[in-house]
């Protein structure tokens, strides 16, 4: 294993199960005792820490997205144009559902499908629908205070009002936005792009900054809880931008090398300095960016990993694989 020091802890699974197909997305329940997985066969599998497994919903075609609200409600979406809230399916569109995202207070669910975004209340009642955006919505992100919703498309990031979904500003950018992440302090928005770049916006000053030089398109973004670091993927390496002081403009990023296949997912543990990286080489690695460039811990599965999720207490990491494996790992090794 390149880049792995002998001191990296081998992490072990707490619970494991098998979904029917490729795992597209994972979410931890707020209590940290269950993980939900959206799989390419359409199933939403829920795995408990005790190893108990159940199917929460079945979409007719691939399930693409899954999210738990802060109050523990489970939402999912699929290529059948349906969403499910706590197992209750409803057809909302003829297009594929690309994303579901709960407002931080858990009272409103935003759903991206085709060129539109709609919101639903926790009971599944439709609240609002945006106007048609110029292109298909690829990603969604709520402002931490829930006042605004960001939708990434080809052509930039459209900001929508949380209530009513009226247009509330466009971060115009000539390219295809694949993933976005708003910093936990709400000051910055980063998006990863089809043409192997990452773009930053200062949401107050509306200033912007472009970072080129990635090996691949960038679909992995993760802010540290204090908004000091943004971890980005776009290849085998993790690239971290430091937002201390006037950064990251003019600074050299930190790079973390340990994977030998492209990254699939990145996530900072909530309220922690630990970062998890998950990649096509079948490995999940734990890092302490800015402190050491060697991984703290490693978990390996004999199958390319496709996604990940942290528990809210930052102690458990869930990973999913191309072959449908779902594992919950104890990711709080003594450091």
């Amino acid at each position, binding site marked *: 294993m390149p880049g792995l020091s002998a001191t990296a802890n081998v992490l072990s699974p707490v619970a494991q199960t098998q979904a*029917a*197909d*490729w795992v*597209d997305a994972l979410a931890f329940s707020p209590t940290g005792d269950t993980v939900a997985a959206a799989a*390419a*066969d359409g199933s939403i599998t829920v795995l408990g820490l005790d190893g108990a497994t159940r199917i929460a919903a079945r979409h*007719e*075609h*691939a399930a*693409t997205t899954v999210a738990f609200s802060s109050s523990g409600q489970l939402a999912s979406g699929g*290529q*059948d*144009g349906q969403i499910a809230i706590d197992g209750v399916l409803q057809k909302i569109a*003829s*297009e*594929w559902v690309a994303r579901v995202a709960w407002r931080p207070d858990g009272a409103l669910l935003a759903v991206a499908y*085709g060129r539109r975004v709609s919101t639903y209340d926790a009971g599944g009642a439709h609240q609002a629908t945006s106007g048609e955006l110029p*292109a*298909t919505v*690829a990603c969604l992100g709520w402002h931490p205070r829930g006042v605004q919703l960001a939708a990434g498309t*080809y052509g930039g990031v459209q900001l929508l009002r949380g209530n009513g979904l009226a247009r509330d500003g466009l971060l115009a*950018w*000539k*390219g*295809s936005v694949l993933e976005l992440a708003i910093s936990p302090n709400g000051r910055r928005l980063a998006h990863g*792009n*089809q*043409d192997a*770049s990452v773009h930053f916006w200062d949401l107050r000053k509306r200033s912007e900054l472009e970072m080129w030089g990635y*090996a*691949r*398109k960038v679909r992995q973004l993760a802010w540290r809880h204090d908004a000091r670091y943004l971890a980005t993927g776009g290849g085998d390496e993790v690239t971290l931008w430091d937002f201390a002081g006037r950064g990251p403009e003019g600074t050299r990023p930190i790079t973390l090398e340990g994977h030998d*296949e*492209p990254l699939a997912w990145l996530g900072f543990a909530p309220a922690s300095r630990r970062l998890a990286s998950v990649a*096509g*080489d*079948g490995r999940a690695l734990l890092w302490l960016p800015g402190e050491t460039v060697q991984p703290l811990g490693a978990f390996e599965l*004999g199958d*390319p990993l496709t996604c990940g999720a942290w528990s809210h207490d930052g102690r458990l990491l869930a990973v999913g694989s*191309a*072959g*449908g494996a779902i594992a919950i790992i104890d990711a709080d090794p003594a450091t």
Partner: protein
Amino acid sequence: MSNPSAQKTPVTVLTGFLGSGKTTLLNRILTEQHGLKIAVIENEYGEVGIDNDLIIDAEEEIFEMNNGCICCTVRGDLIRILGTLMRRKERFDHILIETTGLADPGPVIQTFFVDDEMQQMLSLDGVITLVDAAHLALHLDDAPEASEQIAFADVIVLNKVDLVDPGTLDTLEQRVRALNGVAGIHRVQQAAVPVEKVVGVGGFDLARGLEIEPELLTPSYPFEWLGAYKLRPGSYTLVLGAAPDPAVNLLLLPMPAATDADIDAVLREATITFSTDPLTLGSDGAVSASAGLASVPLRTGGTSVTLRVSDPGTYVLFCEHGAEELELALLDPNGVEAAPALSRQIAPDHEHDEAVGSVGITEAGELHGERFNAWLSKLLQEKGQDIFRMKGVLAIDGLAERFVFQGVHMLFDGRPDRPWGQEERTNKLIFIGRNLDRGALEQGFRACLA
């Protein structure tokens, strides 16, 4: 770790105007017993789920890449759909993408070259263009998209041939051939083309041989007639009876003997000289050997111009227009008509008749690798928008293997292939595109020979 995507799934792109028979062909492919599991991506109704027949409807979304390369437009919807399609455990043997009637095939093809995931999981097999024989002439005259779709194709299915008479069909096929000099052409009725002729054609397979239609390899010349004369010292008179243009360009070059081989040897010099600015002859001017290109003003009712010869020998006269058209005659100092020992009528250069066309080049000899690379980079930078497809097999100086390459607009892919072995080291390449300048391509390529 072994990659589950190591086995790439081949993709066929199906283009053709509305009414050309794409739907009939698709239905044929889906219902025929060929043992292949095929996924079809159509594009009329917007993105909806995958149904039991493995048909996905997609709404075309063209993405321009933000890297300054105007040619790198891709189909964003295909990246999304194919990305998730390849995640299904139940993998397909083949993927078929149908484009809308008026679609430019460029962005679809480029998607497979530009996107890293697509490159990793899928391989482009070929572009199939369906053509409605009964309406092709109309489409070619009215819609530039029709010629572009033909130009991009690896296989052209000339459909509905029962609706036109055989003579018209031959003319149509010639027009298609002039647009695309390498594609296979199948004449069919009711889109009844065997699946194996459209699936697994290997159009983007670098290792495949390159068969270029011979007529596309005929170099073009800026002159339409040449005559070799044995001349003695003295003043000859060239009589030009007709005046189709206000002036005509003439060039006189010496050569060792009046043989075809000797003529071939001076063709290149003549081609290059014809691209220089001609010297306009005054009323008392004379054409003499190796004095450069002369522009002779033509008068209605006939023109006489002096041809001055100082040394005895064989000379070849190159003429911008045909001898018959000009009613050309050469009179010796005694006023007796001198017949050429050898003459050639050269087919006029038709590159401007059809804006879209093919230029094939075949040239024995070793290619200077770096020079070729520099030339091609510059060519693609300047003309990439107009070059739809490009393929070649090259003999690079110092390389034991054949170097095979292909390109779509500005995107280029090349690598050493199998060793030449006993085969003659000959460079073969073809450009298919819009407003291609055969002379400039030939000249640029030859300048790269070591």
